[in-house]
């Protein structure tokens, strides 16, 4: 399945459609996609449905309020929560990560794991921290309070099974990477639990 899913992204226009949908905070309609990517509505719908078939997007129907089509349910698309990973030859780093996470919890060496994550974050630092976070898959964005939030948890599956440990690792990694910025845990319903304040660390 995952190879097919990744294959579905080979076509440049479809890739552009996918990139647009996953960057939006809310589910989007085919009309919005057509306009944003500058393709026809029919073609946008074709690519959207192919991406949904491949398990890369999820669909839902919702009555839109205001504007054309108000009251009529529109088909909306958003990123699927399913993960796709391909390794050739087969490797299973998630299984290994789960074993290691369990061992860390059992032996109580979370502080050592956090320290290792902070060091790793510092090694990854350099240039604009937001750009670095983007490269690492955190999908950073600035909220209205100028706090940088992270739409995606790159370790989501492991975080679901070991939240305090993995959220602590994320915090330490981002602290190491963000240098002088004020980094804290500020969990919301979705996304990564780490937030980066607009001010520097209090000294």
């Amino acid at each position, binding site marked *: 399945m995952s190879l097919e899913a990744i294959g579905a992204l080979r076509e440049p226009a479809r890739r552009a459609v996918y990139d647009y949908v996953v960057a939006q905070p809310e589910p989007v309609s085919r009309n919005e996609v057509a306009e944003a990517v500058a393709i026809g509505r029919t073609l946008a719908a074709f690519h959207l449905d192919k991406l949904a078939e491949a398990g890369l997007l999820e669909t839902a129907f919702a009555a839109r309020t205001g504007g054309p089509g108000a009251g009529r349910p529109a088909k909306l698309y958003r990123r699927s929560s399913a993960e796709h990973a391909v390794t050739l030859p087969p490797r299973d780093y998630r299984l290994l990560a789960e074993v290691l996470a369990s061992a860390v919890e059992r032996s109580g060496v979370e502080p050592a794991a956090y320290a290792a994550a902070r060091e790793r974050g510092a090694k990854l630092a350099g240039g604009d921290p937001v750009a670095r976070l983007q490269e690492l898959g955190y999908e950073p964005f600035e909220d209205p309070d100028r706090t940088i939030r992270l739409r995606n948890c790159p370790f989501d599956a492991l975080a679901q099974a070991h939240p305090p440990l993995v959220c602590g690792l994320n915090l330490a990694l981002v602290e190491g990477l963000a240098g002088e910025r004020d980094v804290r845990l500020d969990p919301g319903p979705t996304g990564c*639990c780490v937030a980066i304040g607009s001010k520097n660390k209090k000294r």
Partner: protein
Amino acid sequence: MAEHHLAQLNIARLRAPIDSPELADFVALLPEINGLAERSPGYVWRLQDESGDATALRPFEPDVIVNLTVWQSVDSLRGFVYRTAHLEPMRRRRDWFVPADEAYLVLWWIPAGDLPTIAEAADRLDLLRRTGPSPEAFTLREPFPAEPSTSGS
């Protein structure tokens, strides 16, 4: 009105006495975290003594504190535990608590309106430790629904 509520016990072995400097940060966080629980969607009840928390109650062992709560659902409990400011003390738990080599948290369903007792909670934890997760005693990682569907339906 739901027919079932979720009972939750977790225990933790203190690294140092509750009134020691090592535990000061944890004790200072308690009122805020307890208040946060009470304001969280799906909160029903928590065990407390006259001081407003349950840290003075030591029904298991003298250095083991207990947290016994009731929630409307697994999702409401999960939301509070992992998606609020409660996550920060969870992250820091090794500063205050000894790691456990056995299950330290157990969940089970109770009739809505009932309250769990410490004795019942101890039995559920014991059951989880002996047989692993089951509909009678389970964990957040492996939850069971309140009313298992009958086979053949």
